[in-house]
């Protein structure tokens, strides 16, 4: 597995001269190479095709770049898509205990069309989740309406720094406005995950792991079979 080799190479060269500190810095620099990004995307899409999850690969016009793409329809009730989940929250988290009573002009359900793209960021050397959403009549969602769709589980944290989490940017390949989940912390949490799995020689799919973490924030939930597929592949390579 090319990615695993890459991981091992980095670790082999990071012989600490003065103790753990230097090794930690090397670990922080285990970035994702673009070709590894493409390989993991290919595996991810292969499984998506097996289970009919709707992901496909799209190439840019000159085929030098590419990205994963998926469309998804979300049904949102009059107030919030996560309204029915407030029951799961312990009493201490009172921030959301009143949200279920938001009064709106209508309680009719709405269907929202989400489009998710997974691109490779050259500057951050990590994958990035781009997305846009519109109602069935074509009207795009505003940032506020996007926020209403963020699972309340994440809202407390994200709302503390909204400007650095979901922003609107130009899609690098399509040139159209998309919302983006900011990738500045991706390398940090993925490194922790990879270090932990690397110790057990696990062969994880970077894209699967990463998307399982960031996707649910914006309504994208990966079926569990992606996780099982990773571990099955792991068993086969043992």
């Amino acid at each position, binding site marked *: 597995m090319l990615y695993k080799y890459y991981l091992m190479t980095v670790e082999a060269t990071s012989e600490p001269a003065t103790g753990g500190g230097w090794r930690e810095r090397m670990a922080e620099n285990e970035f994702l190479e673009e070709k590894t990004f493409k390989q993991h995307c290919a595996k991810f899409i292969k499984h998506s095709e097996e289970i009919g999850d709707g992901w496909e690969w799209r190439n840019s016009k000159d085929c030098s770049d590419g990205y994963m793409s998926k469309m998804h329809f979300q049904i949102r009730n009059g107030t919030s898509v996560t309204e029915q989940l407030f029951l799961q929250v312990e009493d201490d988290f009172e921030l959301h205990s009143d949200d279920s009573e938001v009064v709106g002009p209508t309680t009719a359900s709405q269907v929202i069309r989400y489009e998710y793209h997974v691109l490779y960021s050259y500057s951050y050397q990590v994958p990035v989740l781009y997305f846009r959403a519109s109602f069935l009549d074509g009207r795009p969602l505003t940032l506020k309406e996007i926020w209403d769709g963020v699972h309340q589980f994440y809202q407390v944290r994200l709302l503390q720094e909204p400007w650095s989490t979901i922003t609107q940017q130009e899609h690098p390949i399509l040139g159209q406005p998309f919302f983006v989940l900011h990738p500045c912390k991706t390398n940090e949490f993925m490194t922790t995950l990879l270090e932990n799995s690397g110790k057990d020689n696990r062969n994880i799919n970077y894209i699967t792991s990463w998307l399982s*973490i960031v996707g649910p924030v914006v309504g994208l939930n990966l079926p569990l079979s992606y996780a099982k597929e990773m571990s099955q592949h792991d068993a086969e390579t043992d």
Partner: protein
Amino acid sequence: MAEPERPPTSLTGGPAAGEGAAELGPDPNALEPAPSAAVSPGTEEPTGDAKKKIDVLLKAVGDTPIMKTKKWAVERTRTIQGLIDFIKKFLKLVASEQLFIYVNQSFAPSPDQEVGTLYECFGSDGKLVLHYCKSQAWG
């Protein structure tokens, strides 16, 4: 109702290695509809239908604080979100700190995923091993 005598790890029927399964805060204000706590140690207290709860082993990742009690009996319908909220309270993390839970050390189930389903997919030796990690994911 008769209280069946059983060792802490109810599903395997064997004795718990090290610490026994522990109670996940029987909070009378918990919004679970069932009268019993959603998560419980179940060592001395009856847990009703043993099949309703599954054994979960929680392991810390990175520099996340380690829970003193690692083994818990959790109701199958408890969601990942509920479990994360509990762990954060147990570790006294503030609401704004993000905690992730992973199965197979590599995959984060979505917040609405039920623990019982995860046990069926990823459980082994009568328990579900979950890794948890305090991470800065955004901002």
